[in-house]
């Protein structure tokens, strides 16, 4: 029974599967190439002085990016301090009052906020903070990054808390625990791993953001730890050096890229670890 039609259907089936697998594998090629280049170029430029020195003028060797590393930590850390509490509270509100009108509009606002292009966030913070403070500052950079983290953290908190079963809330309330303590001591701890990994993922997402820093934190060739002054950061350094015409600076940019990628990967791995280890069985 060698029906040619059935044979053709089988061939089509196999061809399509082949195409899917081929395209899928091809889709991973850019990633492999990017990682390969960054590892190869980056490792050759990373050494102790690269991590501890300040940038040097063109032509002098031995320049480093210590100011950018410190700057990134300060800017992103400050952003996290602003965004995490607000985002978590907003997420709690969205979960607890999910049927209220305010929650619906807040949900909508968060969706809009999440979609605002990063460069537009930069403009908004420029108008709000840079103009008010009278100049570029690390703080304005943090504000821009915080504005980008906020919707993400609110969403992950909301999604996590949605999974906390209602019967835990009832158990606590029935024991005579006030509502606010029930939320803070029962519901939030039950979703803590999700909230925490959401917060870290939020940090990982903004730590490589460059566009919102262009006209806020601005960059600074010197070491600065003052929030009210312009500050350097890894993505800014990569952008400035990568688009410069000097070979030395390109090398520094590869090194900075490697450090940035390593930080992002580490943060992503920490979230995966938290999610798998601390998962609470209800």
């Amino acid at each position, binding site marked *: 029974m060698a029906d040619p039609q059935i044979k053709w259907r089988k061939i089509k089936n196999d061809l399509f599967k082949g195409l899917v697998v081929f*395209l899928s594998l091809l889709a991973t090629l850019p990633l492999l190439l990017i990682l390969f280049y960054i590892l190869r170029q980056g490792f050759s430029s990373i050494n102790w002085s690269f991590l501890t020195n300040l940038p040097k003028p063109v032509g002098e060797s031995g320049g480093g990016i210590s100011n950018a590393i410190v700057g990134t930590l300060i800017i992103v850390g400050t952003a996290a301090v602003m965004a995490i509490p607000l985002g978590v509270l907003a997420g709690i509100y969205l979960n607890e009052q999910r049927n209220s009108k305010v929650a619906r509009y807040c949900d909508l606002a968060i969706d809009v906020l999440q979609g605002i292009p990063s460069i537009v966030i930069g403009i908004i913070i420029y108008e709000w903070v840079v103009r008010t403070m009278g100049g570029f500052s690390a703080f304005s950079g943090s504000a821009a990054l915080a504005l980008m983290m906020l919707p993400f953290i609110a969403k992950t908190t909301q999604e996590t808390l949605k999974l906390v079963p209602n019967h835990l809330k009832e158990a606590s309330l029935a024991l005579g625990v*006030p509502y606010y303590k029930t939320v803070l001591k029962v519901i939030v701890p039950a979703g803590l791993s999700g909230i925490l990994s959401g917060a870290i993922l939020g940090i990982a997402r903004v730590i490589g953001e460059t566009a919102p820093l262009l006209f806020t934190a601005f960059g600074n060739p010197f070491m600065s730890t003052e929030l009210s002054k312009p500050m350097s950061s890894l993505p800014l350094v990569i*952008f400035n050096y990568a688009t410069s015409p000097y070979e030395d600076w390109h090398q520094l*940019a590869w090194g900075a890229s490697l450090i940035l990628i390593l930080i992002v990967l580490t943060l992503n791995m920490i979230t995966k670890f938290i999610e798998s280890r601390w998962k609470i069985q209800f």
Partner: protein
Amino acid sequence: MNETLKLTDANWSKAISRKEKGFTITLWLVAISVIILVMAAFLTLLVQSIPSIKANGFSFIYGRMWNPITGEFGALPFLAGTLLTSFLALLIATPFSIAVALFLGEYYKKGMMSQLLKNMIDLLAAIPSVIYGFWGLFVLIPIVRKLQIALDIPPYGVGIFSASVILSIMIMPYAISLSRQVIQMMPSDLKEAAYALGATRFEVIRKVIFPHVLSGLFAGILLALGRALGETMAVTMLVGNTNALPDSIFAPGNTMASVIANEFTEATGAVYSAALVEIGLLLFVVVAIINLVGKRIIKHLAYT
């Protein structure tokens, strides 16, 4: 402790009620302030672009000349650049995204291979935009230049095409994750019914899965488009930054996001900087609409 609390302990009850109220109000205030924040962001962009809206009117959208020195602000080259790069990126990314979504959501739902592929796609989303741009400058551009020489066109390297290629890699993870979700949401009894009738997998995918998830795939592509429209750094580094209407897909151009990135800090004069803010306002509105429509479709799918 319980013995000491009488049922009518008024002070204690009042203290508890006050704290309950305080907590509820705090949460409410946070939610309200998020709403206000977003409205304020929109209003700020609107107010700050008024000088440009007044000076340029509708010619802002169809004007082909962007010349800050003569005070001519026509944003058409950037609108065209953004639309061209974004749609080209979608065109490149869509087949790959659907293939990976089928790989993960239908062919290999479990196992080492799919886990590895999934992690790699996640990684693709984690790489910062500026690194894509950097890599594009030093690895992709030389390749494109060779291609251009082979095709006998001016070998700029940078241009709409290069930006689109990088953009397609960057938006792929978003399109994939959404397409995979909708493919997996598909009820298995429908598929099983088709298999029971003797359909091959390809036939099931084409005749059962695709029609069923089409609107979801559309939403996924729409949301990926939302990402592409606003993407800044990588595009800025690769698009060529030429304020002219591109005459081919290999020509250098400029996008809405990249012109803001390049010129915002240098903009002198009220109308010039307002014109850049107006571009930001356009981006804000267009991306917000695209996102809300896309999310509405996904929500609708999840409930049916």
